[in-house]
């Protein structure tokens, strides 16, 4: 036994440390260690990489190269990161409607958009934390989409940022538009598998993406989450007094979103006869108490003093007035956040994301019918409705069902 162990140790030492061969070392292991199988073994993953690369170069799923198969996408089946990578494909293929916003706009499905406006090829390109710099690039590209009739832009507090910060998905969206032929964000196994499907003549899709997408649309209501409801209850019952204080004055020129994103995109859309809808997403009135009491958000850390929801309303006023002042008749603002039909907390999956399909359909119907259109002349009414809604929510209490 000891002899065997000695021989093994000797063989291992030789293999790892390159120690000289000792007489009596284990022949089999020595043979394995010393045979010249290095290259054949190492070439295997290289061949695997070559195979992946060849499939992607042939299919070109993200439309990065002058060659490749024509895109064939499946509706409503891509997780956010995939959708962001496909931005170039979407804006290069004909679409009737494009919706772009932050997470508050993500739950609208393409079927709901088509059904609401009678289109056949709507697409929702929204992703978490859309910020002014990436919104500018993506919307500029979106306006050039062949056959585009309608562009919907979700505007929430993230667009109030005054810096050039971008999040991971925003950078991905810009990369999708600026990548060159040799960039390979598509070098992942699911994309290769989806490309293989495309190569066989099917759509660019894999089943494993489905659950990720479903999570977005089938989320349970926030009322089933006692922790969040208790937090909301506490925020409303014991509000931060600042919620009723006036918001600090901020000039409209301090929002880069207006001058760098909204107006250039609005003008480009007007030239191309594209209608633009600006959506102020619905939020339960109770949530404004929560924002005030727990103001930390990695996407908008600059609330400062004064009422937070009033700062948001001031921003919306700047948006509405800029549209009117710049003569953009093709741009309409929809204040869904003041619509009591859309701000019921039972329709939300958390404190800000409206997800119930019937509520989403109601929101689209309100946009189509122009129920919540807000203009400079009606803005005071909208502001009053917001103040009223927030004040009324003060009497709300959560009663957990035992």
């Amino acid at each position, binding site marked *: 036994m000891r002899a065997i162990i000695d021989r093994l140790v000797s063989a291992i030492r030789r*293999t*790892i*440390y*390159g120690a000289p061969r000792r007489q009596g070392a284990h022949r089999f292991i020595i043979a*394995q*260690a*010393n*045979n*010249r*199988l*290095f*290259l*054949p*073994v*190492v070439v*295997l*993953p*290289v061949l*695997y*990489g*070559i195979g*992946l*690369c*060849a499939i992607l*170069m042939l299919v070109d799923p993200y439309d990065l190269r002058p060659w490749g198969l024509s895109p064939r996408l499946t509706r409503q089946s891509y997780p956010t990161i995939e959708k962001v990578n496909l931005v170039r494909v979407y804006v290069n293929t004909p679409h009737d409607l494009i919706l772009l916003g932050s997470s508050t706009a993500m739950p609208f499905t393409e079927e709901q958009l088509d059904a609401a406006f009678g289109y056949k090829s709507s697409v929702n390109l929204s992703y978490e934390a859309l910020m002014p710099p990436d919104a500018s690039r993506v919307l500029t590209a979106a306006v050039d989409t062949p056959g585009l009739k309608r562009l919907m832009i979700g505007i929430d507090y993230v667009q109030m940022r005054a*810096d050039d*910060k971008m999040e991971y998905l925003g950078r991905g969206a810009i990369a999708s538009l600026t990548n*060159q*032929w*040799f*960039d*390979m*964000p*598509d*070098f*992942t*196994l699911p*994309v290769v598998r989806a490309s293989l499907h495309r190569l066989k003549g099917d759509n660019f899709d894999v089943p494993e993406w489905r659950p990720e997408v479903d999570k977005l649309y089938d989320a349970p209501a926030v009322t089933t989450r006692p922790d969040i409801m208790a937090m909301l209850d506490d925020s409303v019952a014991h509000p931060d007094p600042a919620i009723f204080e006036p918001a600090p004055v901020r000039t409209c020129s301090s929002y880069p979103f207006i001058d760098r994103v909204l107006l250039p995109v609005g003008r480009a859309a007007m030239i191309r006869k594209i209608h633009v809808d600006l959506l102020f997403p619905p939020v339960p009135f109770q949530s404004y108490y929560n924002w005030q009491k727990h103001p930390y958000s990695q996407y908008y850390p600059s609330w400062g003093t004064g009422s937070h929801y009033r700062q948001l309303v001031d921003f919306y006023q700047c948006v509405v007035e800029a549209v009117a002042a710049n003569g953009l008749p093709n741009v309409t603002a929809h204040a869904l956040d003041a619509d009591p039909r859309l701000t019921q907390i039972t329709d939300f999956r958390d404190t800000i994301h409206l997800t119930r399909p019937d509520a989403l359909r109601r929101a689209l119907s309100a946009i189509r019918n122009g129920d919540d259109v807000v203009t400079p002349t009606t803005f005071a009414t909208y502001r009053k409705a917001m103040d009223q809604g927030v004040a009324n929510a003060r009497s709300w209490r959560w009663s957990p069902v035992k």
Partner: protein
Amino acid sequence: MSLVHPALLFMCLPIFLIVFAAAGRLWGSRGALTVLTAASLLFGATQGIAFLVVIVASALVNYALLMVIVRSDRPASVRLALYTGIAANIGLLALAKYSVWLGWIPVIGTASLSLAALIPTTLSFLTFQRSVALLDGFSARGAVATDLQKPRAGEALSPANPPLRFFAFASMFPNLLIGPIAYLVEVVPQFARSSFGRIRPIDLSIGLTLLAIGLVKKFYFADIIGRDWVDPVFADVAAHGATGGLRAIEAMVAYYVQLYFDFSGYSDMALGVARMMGITLPINFDSPSRATGIVDFYRRWHITLTRVIARFLFSPLSIAGTRYAARKRWRGARAQAVSLWLPLIVNFIVIGLWHGPRLTYVLFGTIHGLWYILETEVRGTKWWKKRRKTIAEPIRMLGGMALTIPLLILTFALFRSATLADFGHLLGSLGNPAQPGVDLPSTWKFAQLGLAYAIVMFGPNAYEMLGRYRPGIRSYINVSITPRLFAFRWRPTLFWGLLVCAAIAAVIGKMSAVTPFAYQVF
């Protein structure tokens, strides 16, 4: 495109190697060099047409001047060609790199800003390599002439076209962007070998191993450490002027090792790709984290820049200073100041400035220069010479490392800071209380950082492991202090093949997100 792009590694590189080998077989070294030059120009074109135009024009100018240097019998012409070439190279680099400082000069400023906008890729490495080629031609005329000149009447024709050798050297794609900066006399003789153009299995094996090591360093250490530990903190400091105390320490400690993995990873890959073609490039890193002092550190960190600056800047300055002191009959501190201290300070400020037009780089270089002077002086004292004999070597080394590493971590945090104010804020944050939930990353992340430090402190470096096969050209001989337990020795066997296979397979899953190398902006 850089060496970590899957399109390069799994498409362009295999095709290139096949064509290179075929050309080598059919047309010998001339064919192989033609393919290498063409591939390098295509690689350059992926950085933008402006970059391609500049590198081709610069290569033509440098070749013409080099020919004057090695052929001319008139010393005045030789000197004029040398100075013109270096001025042109440094001028081009300055225009492309220092537009922030040159912007106010009427015509030059505009040209500089335009060039900087047209060429976002760094020109630092390639202009240095070309300048050094001119200096090589000047200082080793005979050797360079043999490799590059057309044969004189009656001599046999070289199998490789001499201009082609220079163009292949000047634009060789593995080290075109981020080095290592190679000497002409190191590389061109390899082109002149009759076997050049034949791909040998052992070269492929060594090349693939170095490539795999570099890829693991980049994707599994540099990128992850940067993303989790460094970038958010420096961004925080830049945006808000402060961060949590613990986070500041973590970021400083992490950046030092991130930069090492990032840059040495690229160098490993460059050496690996070159080796696949049978070309051996100089080693750029030799376990710098085990340096026992600043002098030792610069023999291990970015070696190819250190040796260039030492050879072509420090040595002439030091010789001139020594002569001046001798002429003036100066002794003691005055003589030392002009012959050693001043050249050292200039040497390190140039190293700092080479990285870009930032005051943080200048201060980084100045601090390292002063540190170098201090250490040199202390090591030269009789007290130290006597004392060092009484201290056991392992203790002396450990003591040196314990003094050196914290100071390196601190000065590299300065190097990483965008402005002096940011560095001040980072230092100011060290006293801040910890931010609950933000300051303490998960145990797994700590383990990753710990592993990274364990590797740089105790693991063998790639060149020690592959030492038996001469994976790179050594510029300095550093004593290896790798513990015996970890002194692994690579051989092209099944065992090592499986390890390299696993490394490449693991990296493939990470290659969709390519982040630029830190040194791509210098």
